[in-house]
């Protein structure tokens, strides 16, 4: 496996710059699959999401998931970057980019990482309401837990 970049940051994610690292100056990468998860405004009712995380564990857990993916498929590079703190609608919450020689491994690796990141990486989202009212903690979806069973 080649580059593995895992990072948490409060600042906006530069998707293009982070993804470029996977292919620049090399001729073996034939496929890159990039997933970006964006903050939705829920029909204008939200002004943003507050992302709480478990420092120390969050980065370690994403690294563990990425390394598991690298062991399952012939990947040539992985970038996984997650925001914390306040994120505005339209901004990127998470970026997962996976490089491989061929598309099947790149797709599988990216989906695997996202599925496990959703249910295993210690992050929690709290809504910030546009009307200033008390926002709710986002509920975990059963479909996210169920998504793990296919791997």
């Amino acid at each position, binding site marked *: 496996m080649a580059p593995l970049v895992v990072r948490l940051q409060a600042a906006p994610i530069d998707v293009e710059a982070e993804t470029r690292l996977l292919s620049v100056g090399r001729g073996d990468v034939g496929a890159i699959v990039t997933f970006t998860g964006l903050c939705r405004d829920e029909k204008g009712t939200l002004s943003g999401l507050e992302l709480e995380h478990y420092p120390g564990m969050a980065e370690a857990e994403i690294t563990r998931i990425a390394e598991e993916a690298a062991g399952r498929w012939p990947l040539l590079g992985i970038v996984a970057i*997650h925001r914390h703190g306040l994120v505005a609608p339209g901004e990127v919450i998470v970026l997962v980019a996976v490089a491989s020689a061929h598309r099947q491994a790149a797709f599988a690796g990216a989906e695997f990482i996202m599925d496990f990141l959703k249910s295993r990486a210690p992050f929690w989202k709290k809504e910030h309401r546009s009307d200033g009212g008390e926002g709710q903690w986002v509920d975990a979806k059963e479909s996210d837990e169920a998504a793990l069973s296919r791997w």
Partner: protein
Amino acid sequence: MKIVYFAWLRERVGVPEEVVALPDGVRTVGEVITHLSGLGENYAYAFERPSVIRAALDRKHVPLDAPLGEARELALFPPMTGG
């Protein structure tokens, strides 16, 4: 033992972390939760549905029946909603 809380569990308990002296009989994560539930109304509210609680010992996921062993930090939190 050092216990850390996240998300609505942190809000309900009222502190992000604390050191709790555990009675001798408390040997698993689930037993810690039972013990905490008896410490006051805020704890009882936080842990009213023990089945939804997730736990990590020294920053590794564990099931609720996991023994505490030599772990130094227990984290308790709701199901994760990252990504």
